[in-house]
């Protein structure tokens, strides 16, 4: 069960981190 939770939590965290990074890059490009 732990592995399944780790798999789903990892997927969620990775995608959230990706979109935060994407937002940051958008901001940097606009400010440049």
């Amino acid at each position, binding site marked *: 069960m732990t592995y399944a939770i780790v*798999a789903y939590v990892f997927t969620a965290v*990775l995608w959230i981190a990706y979109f935060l990074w*994407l937002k940051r890059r*958008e901001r940097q490009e606009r400010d440049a």
Partner: protein
Amino acid sequence: MNPTIPAWWRGAGRALWALAAILLAASLGAITRYAPTEVQMGIVQKIVYVHVPSATMTLLAFGLTFAGSIAYLATKQWAWDALAAASCELGMVFATVVMVTGPLWARSAWNTWWTWEPRLTTFLILWILYAGYHVVRSSIRSSSKRTVSSILGIVLFVNLPVVWMSIQWWRGSLHPRNVTMTGEMRTTLLLSMAAWMVFFAAALLTRLRLEWIREEALERDLAGARAPETGRAGA
């Protein structure tokens, strides 16, 4: 807020994100409440509902990179290169999900985190090579960036059929050649697949916005560089 990105683009993005949220919530509900727990593996088997759709989206994303790269070389329109690059980046995130959820499954199913069996090995090679696409693309500052990226996007596509066919071509694969899922499990997997596909489409529109902003900045820079020349010519 970027004024030149059309309103319909934003509207389509919002609609896709709303649909993705609904489908992902429904798929999570189905995974936890509707799909039965597999007898031998138990709850760990439910990793399949994120692992398989992510693997499918990886192949779809890299397939789009291939198509976008060909279209760019044929037309030289920046939008095709933008599609290729954006899709490739999302494909990398999906591939990373596959690379992490796979060993979590393997530890329970095969009693090992990793084994050099055909599907795992070819997928690892795929991940490394597409990571190389981004390294090369981000390291080129000249005008050849798009052409080089497109050539890479086409060449790397060779890996996709290799990953797909690896379990047929080589012996010793732990991945099953034919999977027959029925009943609630099949319905849940199909729902998850649909949810991640809509998520991919929404994410692609969002990621393309960055390419749009970059293209505008590039055009502004070029216009700025041309302006003094025009001024001199007119003087």
